């Protein structure tokens, strides 16, 4: 994997990021119209008042000047202030990031592990009951809206059975630190994490199954058996590692979606992460906040796509030693 390869991929990612920035600007400033007029619709403002407000929001000057000011601000991570809370957008995002990272991160890992395992079972037992069961189950969870699944789990486990809380991050009565806090958060996180894990694992199962079925057709497996290896060894040492390559890439890509992956589910469970923040920003709409969130989400995906490309190149010797 040459430096040139890495530099090339990095450059491509930066270009994509640049396009996102331009798109972001274009969408919010140009398409949405004059933000000041939108915000203060219905109120009678004098022109000088409007001009003052525009200056305050950095909306004066020509389009070009505004664009460069926007770029400058973005690079310094100044995304403006939220319309609703008037706090800097970046601090809002920063403070609400960890609940999402915790929730979606855990779900992403669990869904990958369980999904891959199911996929291996399904492919190896192709056509038999375990294959049928695994694929039917994952197809069902994959076909429903993730937040609806969340609703069902919430009703059954929290409302009806009362085993888990109905929402929120933690009990206001427990102290904010220490083991008790961690356990409390974990207890609150159980249902949303279960929802997301079930929702995501279908993808892994289907891809692992398909990849393993393709790999099982390969001739080097026949050679492996001819050498006298046991079937299980052939599967685990030759078939599964080769079939895992596309899955690893998928994991890396899905990590990029960690930040944006739970918007609807967080809403259902009132989980105070970036997803809920996005939902709250929609009432308004709180445009600077939405703009900032969109940038952060996109940047996360772009970065992890880059990581995924590198990971695949590293793991597949055909690419690494090309």
């Amino acid at each position, binding site marked *: 994997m040459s430096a040139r390869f890495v530099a090339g991929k990095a450059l491509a990612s930066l270009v994509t990021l640049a396009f996102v920035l331009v798109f972001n600007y274009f969408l919010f400033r140009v398409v949405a119209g004059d933000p000041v007029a939108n915000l203060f619709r219905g109120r009678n403002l004098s022109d000088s008042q409007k001009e003052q407000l525009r200056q305050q929001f950095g909306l004066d000057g020509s389009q070009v000047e505004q664009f460069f000011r926007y770029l400058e601000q973005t690079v310094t991570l100044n995304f403006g202030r939220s319309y609703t809370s008037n706090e800097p957008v970046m601090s809002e995002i920063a403070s609400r990031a960890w609940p999402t990272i915790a929730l979606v991160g855990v779900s992403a890992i669990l869904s990958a592990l369980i999904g891959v395992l199911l996929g291996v079972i399904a492919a190896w037992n192709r056509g038999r009951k375990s294959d049928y069961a695994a694929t039917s189950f994952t197809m069902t969870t994959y076909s429903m809206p993730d937040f609806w699944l969340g609703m069902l789990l919430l009703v059954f486990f929290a409302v009806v059975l009362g085993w888990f809380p109905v929402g929120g991050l933690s009990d206001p009565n427990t102290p904010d630190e220490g083991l008790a806090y961690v356990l409390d958060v974990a207890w609150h996180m159980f249902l949303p994490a279960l929802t997301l894990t079930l929702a995501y694992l279908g993808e892994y199962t289907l891809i692992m199954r398909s990849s393993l079925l393709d790999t099982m057709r390969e001739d*080097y497996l*026949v050679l492996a058996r001819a*050498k*006298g290896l046991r079937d299980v060894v052939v599967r685990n040492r030759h078939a599964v590692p080769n079939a895992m390559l596309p899955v690893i890439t998928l994991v890396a890509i899905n990590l990029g979606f960690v930040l944006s992956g739970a918007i609807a589910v967080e809403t259902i469970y009132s989980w105070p992460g970036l997803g809920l923040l996005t939902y709250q920003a929609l009432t308004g709409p709180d445009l600077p906040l939405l703009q900032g969130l969109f940038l952060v989400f996109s940047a996360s995906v772009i970065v992890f796509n880059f990581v995924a490309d590198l990971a695949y190149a590293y793991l597949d010797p*055909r690419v690494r030693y090309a």
Partner: protein
Amino acid sequence: MSETPLLSVRDLHVTYPGDVPAVRGVSFDLRAGETLGLAGESGCGKSTLAGALLRLLPRGTGVTGEVLLDGEDVFAMLPGRLRAVRWTEMSIVFQGALHTLNPVRRVGWQIAEAYTTHDADAPAREVRARVGELLEVVGLPAARADDYPHQLSGGQKQRVLIALALTCNPRLLVADEPTTALDVMVQAQVLRLLEELQGKLGLAMLFITHDLSTLASACQRLAVMYAGRIVEEGPSHEVFAEAAHPYSRALAEAFPVIGDPRFRMAPSGLPGDPPDPREVPSGCPFHPRCPRVVDECTTWEAELRRVTTGWDAACIHVRGDG
């Protein structure tokens, strides 16, 4: 000289799922140190035959008949015994052009795996030494052990496969199209290598190919397959020069030998295609394409008739005496 043949195949039938008969009653013997060539066009069942010998065909394939390896019934072997026998008594040199080598493992590792499968306690030093030794026997530098398959040329990959096949000192080597898809010059080199090894190690060899001309010099005896059956079997030079079966003759003539005046003025080829295994013609399966066809050929059950001692052909024109 009536020792038990090393390999004895009796009335082997192989049927793929969907009632596709690939091998329809094949019988032959192979003695220790003997070389038998098996020739035929694509689809005649020769590769299926190779796979059947060590029970390497996919699950669900119908196999009947008898395969005796040094007197032991291969089809009756328990899985443990079968795995122990694979590669140590009989090994296969697969066609290197396909994905026969695991693309994400170094070739040295793949040879070592064959070694350690049958000798799990061998110290790493010993395994490494053996790998190096095998590579050098086939004419490759020992350092090549650290290469990945895609870093090797076609000829080099084929040599690796030969080295791999010799790892456990088998007594019988099955070479399944080892020179197909190689350049002519490389073909000649690989053929020479195989002949050399066979002589030096006293291996019995079953050499499968569609190129009859390579068999004439490499093998003592020659068998020709058509539509799942052996239609002629005899001493290689005689069969190649003056085949008793019209198909063998056509096959021999299809591969002109440069310099041989017989080929200069008579370009040849046979009209038609080999029959679809699901729709084998009645009587002698070759009769639709045969230049010497007569009326009885459509109803005659084409069984092998004696041309002379040690030479049989399944043609109605063979008188059956001698």
